[in-house]
């Protein structure tokens, strides 16, 4: 039985005001030790609010959050000890340089001056920031700032790391670099909760994904299973020199093929699983195959199916 590092139970948050906002409307999920868990949803879905409650900065209307078995709502102090956060916005201390940002963060977590210095230097080394030691946060590129924030978030050895849209606004290169670091942290035993509205990010990084919309979780599963739930794992688009009905019925009869659909200039075949690609193509080659493209189902399509609309980006 795997250890539950985060338990979110029946979370509700209504922002009071002239017009009350029902930001979170009953969200529950568990995150296991060592997992990268994704909250995927469009703007205003309630991702940041959920993370805010779990990280003790937002007071829930009702519901409970247990961080490493510590109740984050009734005992925020002990819960905060166990988690690190990278918020949606750059919250690096602009009055301090990069090294000081790490150093004072450690001090906030009770390190002595000597321990904090050692830890800051170690982090600078590990995150390859040694040539940015004296840089001011405003002078850092988006990717670098994010890397410093990540280093700072794990400085006190949290069991649980929250990343709220960590790659929003980063260029593809920096995004890739950040993904690498997150994966390395996972290998080293950190459990990660990540919010995003990038399908690809959820797909590449997350072990399990919760699809959130309008303050509710629509579905939780592995990216793989979510995609399978569409009915097919992979599509093949084939173009033939000449398309004959005889050939098509032969393909349709194959065990590997679920369904076949004739489009204007090509034939779309849905496969039982992605391992069947080669077998079907081999067959098609004998029928005068001209062109082929493989279409992996994306979380995007899962999302559209679940919510009936596209993810706003």
């Amino acid at each position, binding site marked *: 039985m795997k250890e539950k590092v985060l338990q979110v139970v029946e979370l509700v948050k209504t*922002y009071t005001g002239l017009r009350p906002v029902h930001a979170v409307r009953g969200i529950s999920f568990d995150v296991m030790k060592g997992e990268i868990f994704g909250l995927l949803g469009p703007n205003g879905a309630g991702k940041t609010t959920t993370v*805010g409650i779990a*990280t*003790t*900065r*937002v*007071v829930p209307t009702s519901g409970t959050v247990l961080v490493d078995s510590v109740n984050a709502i009734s005992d*925020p*102090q*002990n819960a*905060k*000890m*166990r*988690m*690190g*956060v990278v*918020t949606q*916005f750059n*919250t*690096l*201390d*602009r*009055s*301090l340089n990069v090294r*000081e940002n790490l150093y*004072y*963060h*450690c*001090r*906030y*977590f*009770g*390190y002595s*001056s000597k321990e904090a210095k*050692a830890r800051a230097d*170690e982090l600078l*080394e*590990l995150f*390859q*920031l040694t040539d940015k030691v004296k840089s001011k946060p405003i002078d850092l*590129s988006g*990717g*670098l700032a994010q*890397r410093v924030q990540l280093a*700072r978030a*794990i400085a006190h*050895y949290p*069991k649980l790391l929250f990343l709220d849209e960590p790659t929003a606004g980063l260029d593809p*290169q*920096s995004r*890739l*670099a950040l993904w*690498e*670091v997150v*994966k*390395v942290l996972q*290998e*080293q*035993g*950190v459990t990660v909760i990540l919010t995003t509205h990038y399908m690809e990010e959820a797909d590449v990084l997350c072990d399990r994904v919760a699809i959130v919309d309008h303050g509710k979780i629509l579905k939780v599963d592995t990216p793989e299973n979510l995609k399978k739930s569409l009915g097919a794992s992979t599509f093949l688009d084939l173009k033939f020199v000449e398309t004959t009905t005889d050939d098509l019925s032969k393909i349709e009869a194959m065990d590997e093929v679920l369904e076949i659909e004739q489009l204007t200039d090509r034939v779309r075949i849905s496969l039982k699983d992605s391992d069947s690609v080669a077998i079907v193509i081999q067959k098609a080659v004998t029928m005068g195959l001209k062109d082929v493209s493989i279409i992996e189902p994306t979380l995007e399509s899962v999302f559209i199916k679940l919510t009936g609309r596209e993810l706003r980006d």
Partner: protein
Amino acid sequence: MTDQDFVNSGVDSTLTKPSNLDQQGSAPSFRTALNGTTISYKVSSGRTFYGLMARDLRVLSKNLGEFASRTAMQPFLFVFVFAYLFPKIGQGFSGSVGRNISFATILVPGLVGVAATMSGIMAVGLPLAIDLGVTKEIEDRAMAPVPVWLIGLEKIVFGAIQSLISALIVFPLVILIPSTPVQVHVANWPLLILVIFLACLISGAFGLTLGSMVQPVKIGLMFSLLVLPLTMLGCIYYPWSSLSSVRWLQIAVLINPMVYVSEGLRDVLTPALPHMAVWAFLMALMITAAVLLFAGLKLFTRRVMS
């Protein structure tokens, strides 16, 4: 190092592979610790408080020159013009104070008091308003393992420290610059320390209250509507008792906490001047401090936690 280099250098080889980590000396502890075996998650509010204070003092030390000149400028010009220049060129307000006491003497407690009070408001209020309203930098400190009100209390204490430094910077100026004699005499040291302590506390708490309340775009407005009346009507340039000829104003200014700071310092620094009764200003100062402390911590907590 750019992100390009970062990727090219192969993060995985430098961060993941144990052999590589071993070569980096302290890195293995990074591994084990993250696996959660060697970490004790013990909370120590005192150490966190100390860490927060260390951070603020570090930032202050970086801007010490700027801070000192900003603090000194206004009182320096003020005493220079009104207590040095005016007597020399034969202009001046001896006022209705009488008893052969110079205007310079009146200014001593007033200017020290206003410097101390404003310093905390500026040092805590302004950065906090921007922090809470624009940059959100406070979020990292909000994640420190202490109750949020303690983070606010640290701000108050830090504001009080700056307030004290300001008073110490201004004091020699107002004593040394005037061209007329200044009669300063401290008879009651414990009372002096108590008044200064309360003034500094009020200043820090006032800063926290304003910083948690005011939107960054309204800072200019706050200055004209709050800070200016606070100083002009704060018995800084005249003793409270001399307002007796404008009775309604003498009563109206009693809602201004600045009055009690000025009068308190007047009693402990320049006892030759007429001043408010000790029990009166002490009680007012304590009530003000308590109210602002409570309001500041409450408002701050509410701003940080939504």
